[in-house]
């Protein structure tokens, strides 16, 4: 059974009305909840149907030509219209070809620069650091915040938390990495705050994270859990 609050969030998510932090928290919840995903699909379909309630208008034929011409260019194949044109149309094509060559040169230059940047980054792991700012979710305590410095190359990071009250007895805070290629969030271990609600901890994810999109802190059973179960209290993207 999905809590009503989460169902409401799903409605707003389907309409694109959630704030970025709320979106990240909702997507985190979505990743491990098939029932919530099914509800979201229903809500999305209802949203799609709303478009049919609008009085029908016919788009102009000129728009069709514009769109199909652009797509034909993108597909790098001539449109039927282009085939009918006279041979004088070579001029714009020549300009386009010149631009293409110019863009190619720029692309080569960009690749070179990227290679150089990669080399520099490889030499100094600190250059790879990505910073995430975590803010309270709707269920989280107002005023709590955290910053994560994540080094993807070393698969390690540091989290600093402030103003986060200690969890209830028998509970622990647990850090999670939301990775684009993993269905479920990856555990980065239990995080314990001191009596002032502060923690600064070095962590490592339990699995290889390839493309971390967000970090989140949830309340879990004491000692932590292998798969996220409890509510998110802090969440944030890079």
């Amino acid at each position: 059974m999905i809590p009503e609050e989460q169902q409401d969030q799903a409605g707003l998510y389907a309409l694109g009305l959630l704030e970025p932090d709320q979106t990240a928290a909702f997507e985190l919840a979505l990743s491990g909840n098939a029932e919530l995903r099914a509800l979201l699909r229903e809500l999305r379909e209802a949203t799609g149907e709303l478009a049919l309630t609008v009085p029908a208008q016919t788009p102009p034929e000129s728009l069709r030509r514009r769109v199909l011409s652009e797509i034909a260019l993108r597909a790098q194949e001539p449109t039927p219209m282009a085939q009918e044109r006279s041979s004088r149309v070579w001029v714009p094509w020549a300009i386009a070809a010149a631009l293409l060559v110019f863009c190619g040169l720029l692309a080569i230059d960009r690749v070179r620069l990227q290679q150089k940047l990669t080399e520099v980054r490889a030499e100094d792991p600190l250059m790879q650091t990505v910073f995430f700012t975590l803010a309270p979710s709707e269920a989280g305590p107002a005023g709590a915040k955290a910053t994560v410095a994540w080094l993807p190359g070393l698969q390690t990071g540091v989290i600093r938390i402030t103003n986060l009250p200690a969890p209830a007895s028998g509970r622990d805070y647990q850090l999670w990495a939301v990775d684009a290629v993993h269905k479920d969030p990856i555990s980065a271990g239990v995080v314990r705050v001191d009596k002032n609600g502060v923690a600064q901890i070095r962590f490592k994810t339990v699995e290889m994270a390839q493309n971390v999109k967000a970090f989140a802190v949830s309340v879990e059973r004491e000692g932590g859990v292998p798969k996220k179960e409890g509510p998110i209290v802090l969440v944030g993207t890079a």
Partner: protein
Amino acid sequence: MAFETPQQVSDREMIVKVARGETAAFRALYDRLSGPLYSLALKMLNDAGEAEDALQDVFVQIWSRAKTYDPDQSSVFTWTVLLTRSRVVDRLRARERRLRVVTAEEQGRKVGDASTAASAADIVDKNEEVVRVRSKLNELPSEQREAIELAFFTDLSHHEIAARIGQPLGTVKARIRRGLLKLRERLTT
């Protein structure tokens, strides 16, 4: 994957071909979807030129992002509607102009007009699906209909919607969710 109507299956087959770079399939998809998507863009933007530009952006996105379409998340039609709405909202925000089409009262009247059996729009549409969806939308309690129409057809945030209709945020969220679920339920039974 959820149950699919024959039209949804056909749309999905077309988008697979579009993802492979087949322009003929793209043309077919354009002919199938441009009407409702243009109508939506025009209603929200209230400007034919801007609606055309938005629709061009949307179809270029469909072409370039067809490979990312996920049938588990939505039907092709819904996916393109949400892409269109997103592009239109970007444009509305960019020009910092609130939608003039919808105020709560105006919308009530407009929808009321549309629900009339002999409404002009219905006669023009001659489209059973459109009439059916309109009719089901009109069957929703007016406060739910108002909330989801403001949420869908404008670029207002949920906080702004709550302020507009003078209700607490939690009430607005619940009305949106209940309205959408009720609409979906009525359309699928």
